[in-house]
């Protein structure tokens, strides 16, 4: 049984290795920058013009 556990674990790591590539870095950076810049915009610029941080959809 320990051998089986070891194999499963190794496969899981290979799968996650496939995830962490340059594309993954790009989407992480895209999402991270988007959240940070939006927060900066909402917390610093919008309150000067608007009552509360209210978005409309």
């Amino acid at each position, binding site marked *: 049984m320990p051998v089986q556990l070891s194999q499963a674990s190794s496969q899981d790591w290979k*799968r996650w290795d*496939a*995830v962490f590539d*340059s*594309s*993954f*870095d*790009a*989407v*992480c950076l*895209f*999402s991270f920058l*988007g*959240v940070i810049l*939006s*927060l900066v*915009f*909402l917390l610093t610029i*919008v309150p000067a*013009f*608007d*009552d*509360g*941080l*209210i*978005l*409309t*959809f």
Partner: protein
Amino acid sequence: MAMASASGPAATAQVSEATRWGQLLFGVICMVMIANLQYGWTLFVNPIDQKYHWGRAAIQIAFTIFVLTETWLVPFEGYLIDKFGPKIMVASSGGLVAIAWVINSMADSLFLLYVGAAIGGIGAGVIYGASVGNALKWFPDRRGLAAGLTAAGFGAGSALTVIPIANMIQSSGYEAAFLWFGLGQGIVVVLVALLLKAPEAGEVPVPASPAVQQTRRDYGPAEAIRTPVFWVMYAMFVMVGAGGLMAIAQLAPIANDYKIASVPVSILGLTLPALTFALTIDRVLNGVCRPFFGWVSDLIGRENTMFVAFLIEGLGIYALLYFAANPLLFVILSGLVFFAWGEIYSLFPATCTDIYGRKFATTNYGMLYTAKGTASLLVPLANVLTNATGSWHAVFYVAAILNIIAAVMALFVLKPMRIRTMARS
């Protein structure tokens, strides 16, 4: 947990039409289940304020947090969906949207309300991305229609539950509505997610002579954002999204300025006050236009459809400036503006996948979809114009011009760039 990829090594036999329409239906059901998180939220704001007196602005920050997490995390979530398939991601997100509303039902502090909003945004983002991405992958031959039907589930889905939620808030309190609708929505998503799957290679039909040109290779997200055509689409998405939102946000001030808000208007036997009528048909037309324009784009091409829709939107906003004093024209023209606005959620995902391929369809559209978040950030700035000029006229001019520019860009910038990018691929 199988790696789901449209270009897997082993080709599989083409599936029946019922199978892929079934997949589309499952995606639409998931979208309907998360529609309340965005469109039903407004029902809860006053009851929460009445109980805790936190103030509407502080409570609405929860909605802002929801929008931020629901839009900006989709690229990251979409990448995991493209890698691991929709089943596991959507099923776990069904749990998240249920947990979010259960937290809301018990939240006795703003912090807890904000935590619930963040969790709900993450869950809704995954479900939105996976549902649209799956539709794009299963229907290479009817991509506009499939994306439009799925997006319509989100736009119009809340229409089914607005009245039951409002009734439950009235009879049992907002906490019960959050708890039971949250659990119900989450459970349905989890169950439906178990039926979701991405197509294997060869499972979907390859149209012999597609009306819409499609790429011959799959672009990764890092490649896609390096192509200029991606940013042209992004700019157009922001222009049309922000232009429409700016105009829609000014409907109530216009109706009040012209003193027509409560004037009864009758259309096809239905009589309602003008402003209520305009806001009611918003939901319906905002949902209907998504599959309609998506279907049209499958027949005449994406950019041609964008040109027509964005031009109608721009001219509709412009006409509203001059004819809004007439209650009947106010309702009809605002309906036209709504009708020509929502199709961005079917035309852009379809165009994005036509250009960048199916393998990373969810991720690539996820990055484009963040334009919705960018557009919403611009809307509060419309107040600057209103305050500076003392009226809403300038906002309308800006909104109309943004749409007309986007319409012209569709034909004279996007189309040639898209053709060049595809020729290189």
